């Protein structure tokens, strides 16, 4: 191998016919001898090959837009022919301007780097080919290793690569290989995440901004440091002009443009918790989506997801900004500890389903995924409070109790099997006396629900809850009638599809289908309806009673956001000490649930309730959803009858 190095170095020196190069080549030749002849590592395992690189599995929303990627390296390789010419040129200009002249090792560049290093300016002289060799074979060529041995091995492999591949193949491999931070690799992935478009659509200024990044992807992150990136981008543009790739006028025009990055990392909606669920479901089906190359078509609606995210973030921030708020507050970017399960500030979750298919249209598992990845919608386990009551009332209506039947909202003392006395109270600490079943639900009177539970039997109510799709254990105690038994939030929201579908619950569906890299469908999920749980007439009556919760009951705050033209039925929930607040509701198009609370249950605030905190999130989310839908209908393409 030393022999081939010698020949190549001499050849390069001859090519450039520069004494300095010859001197340097000679020095490189003898350095290994002086250092004890360190052998270049792993030359027998062909570190010069351009290997197929790992691709990401793409997660697509129901409209086909990208909402997430799964894989160790988030990458979508593209052909260099599909890229605008100035994109590879920008990289060549700044990373290796003699790329088309050298044979893998830029001896002139090395000499310049040596001289600069002597005069105190540290810089490298790795060519694009060398960088590709190192990035593509990190186990063979460890680029963190600064030894001469590693450099020689890299140079040798780079020269070998140049013998086997064309310059375009090497440049394409490089552009698809390089890291751009955040686990994003290659120009296509970087273009999508930083600028929200395919690399083929990048402008000259955006292409130059990407070319500014390989020097330090973290240091030159366009989202975090736009000014720093703009400065280096302008250097790239000047170099491109100086090297004749673009005119001075083009460079000047591009230098004047601001750095404009895409929100949500280029995804159509911020939905990391949803993508987590999709990944886990696919893996459970035995599909190795982590290995990349799959396309996962999902049910998520980006419009509703964005509406859910913004409504949750705004309402929780608004609560924290109120005078007298006594808990730690969420600060964006502060103490972010991705992976920690719980936080000490107010959290929340939102889930929205299509009522007829169970398709999960939106899922927000918390306030900040980068701080806490815990999915409170799927992995949470919370008391539902009064949000459980529609199940109790459905059992009552099914048991031939009419909605205008009168009950006593009064003090109760129930002796439990362990001889303790249970005294249910209402959240306002008042008793309203005789009240109809309809009004008791609208006003969320606990005492009436407990009486119904005792009259009907908690076992039969638990049985009904399970038929409606609830998987949690409902303890056979009177307090379970007012939601004392913990549930999984997604489960409880799915239970409400029973009311939307006149008795037939549907299971939540995240994935439509998964295609492998050959576009062959490897997984397909159909709508899964459970057996009818209730008589359609019963669900119709209960749904009508739940409309009163919104029109004149505990969730009337929703009408501040949604016009009366949109029918809404639902139920609030508030647990002891106001530590969990809920609203779960349905419109003709959506069944959705909102929960707010702390990961470690403590009182949110005095007087906090599902109607005052959770219902506004629901109302705001759906107001934005319907506004966007209406706008989309208004702006639908029309035939021009000119």
């Amino acid at each position, binding site marked *: 191998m030393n022999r081939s190095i010698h020949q190549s170095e001499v050849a390069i020196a001859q090519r450039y016919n520069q004494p300095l190069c010859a001197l340097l080549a000679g020095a490189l030749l003898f350095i290994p001898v002086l250092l004890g002849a360190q052998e270049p590592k792993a030359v027998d395992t062909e570190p010069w090959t351009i290997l197929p690189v790992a691709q990401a599995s793409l997660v697509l929303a129901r409209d086909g837009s990208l909402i997430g990627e799964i894989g160790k390296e988030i990458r979508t390789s593209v052909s260099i022919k599909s890229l605008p010419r100035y994109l590879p040129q920008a990289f060549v200009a700044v990373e290796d301007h003699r790329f088309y002249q050298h044979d893998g090792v830029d001896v002139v560049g090395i000499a310049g780097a040596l001289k600069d290093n002597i005069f105190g300016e540290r810089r490298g002289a790795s060519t694009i080919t060398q960088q590709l060799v190192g990035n593509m074979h990190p186990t063979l060529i460890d680029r963190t290793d600064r030894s001469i041995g590693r450099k020689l091995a890299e140079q040798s492999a780079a020269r070998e690569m140049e013998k086997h591949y064309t310059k375009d193949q090497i440049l394409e491999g490089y552009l698809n290989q390089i890291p751009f931070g955040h686990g994003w690799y290659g120009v296509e992935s970087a273009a999508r995440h930083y600028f929200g478009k395919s690399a083929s659509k990048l402008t000259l200024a955006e292409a130059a901004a990407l070319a500014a990044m390989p020097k330090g992807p973290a240091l030159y992150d366009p989202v975090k440091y736009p000014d720093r990136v703009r400065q280096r981008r302008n250097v790239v543009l000047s170099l491109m002009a100086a090297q004749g790739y673009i005119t001075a006028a083009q460079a000047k025009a591009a230098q004047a443009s601001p750095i404009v990055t895409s929100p949500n990392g280029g995804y159509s909606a911020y939905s990391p918790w949803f993508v987590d669920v999709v990944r886990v479901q696919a893996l459970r089906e035995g599909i190795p989506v982590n290995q990349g190359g799959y396309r996962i078509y999902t049910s998520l609606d980006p419009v509703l997801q964005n509406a859910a995210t913004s409504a949750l973030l705004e309402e929780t921030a608004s609560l924290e900004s109120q005078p007298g708020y006594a808990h730690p507050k969420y600060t964006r970017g502060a103490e972010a500890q991705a992976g920690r399960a719980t936080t000490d500030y107010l959290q929340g979750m939102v889930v929205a389903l299509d009522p007829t298919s169970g398709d999960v249209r939106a899922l927000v598992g918390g306030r900040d995924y980068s701080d806490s990845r815990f999915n409170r919608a799927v992995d949470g386990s919370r008391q539902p409070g009064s949000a459980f009551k529609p199940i109790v009332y459905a059992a009552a*209506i*099914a048991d*031939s*109790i*009419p*909605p*205008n*039947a*009168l009950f006593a909202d009064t003090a109760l003392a129930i002796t439990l099997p362990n001889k303790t006395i249970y005294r249910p109270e209402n959240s306002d600490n008042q008793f309203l006396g005789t009240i*109809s079943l*309809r*009004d008791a639900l609208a006003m969320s009177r606990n005492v009436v629900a407990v009486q119904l539970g005792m009259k009907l039997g908690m076992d039969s109510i638990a049985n009904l809850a399970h038929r409606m799709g609830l998987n949690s254990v409902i303890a056979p105690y009177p307090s379970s009638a007012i939601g004392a038994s913990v549930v999984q939030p997604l489960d409880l929201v799915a239970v409400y599809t029973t009311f939307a579908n006149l008795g037939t619950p549907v299971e939540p569906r995240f994935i439509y289908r998964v295609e492998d890299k050959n576009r062959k469908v490897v997984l397909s999920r159909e709508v899964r309806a459970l057996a009818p749980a209730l*008589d359609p*007439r*019963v669900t*119709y*009556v209960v749904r*009508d009673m739940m409309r009163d919760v919104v029109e004149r009951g505990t969730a009337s705050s929703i009408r501040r956001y949604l016009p009366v033209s949109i029918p809404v039925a639902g139920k609030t929930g508030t647990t002891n000490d106001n530590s969990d607040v809920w609203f779960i509701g349905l419109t003709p198009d959506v069944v959705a649930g909102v929960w707010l609370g702390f990961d470690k249950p403590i009182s949110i605030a005095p007087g906090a309730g599902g109607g005052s905190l959770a219902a506004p999130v629901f109302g705001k989310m759906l107001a934005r959803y319907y506004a966007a839908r209406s706008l989309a209908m208004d702006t639908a393409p029309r035939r021009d009858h000119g």
Partner: protein
Amino acid sequence: MGEVDRETSQLATDITPADRRYTEYFVEGTEPPPLRADPWKIFAWGPIIF
């Protein structure tokens, strides 16, 4: 279904104010007696002539 007086939870009458009336829905068999289908009422229409 029937018109119900929100205050008394009984069927609304001619003198029930409009703002207290609402439409209540009942599962068949649970409605107030005046709303139930009564086959004997057929005879109130007069003799059945074959």
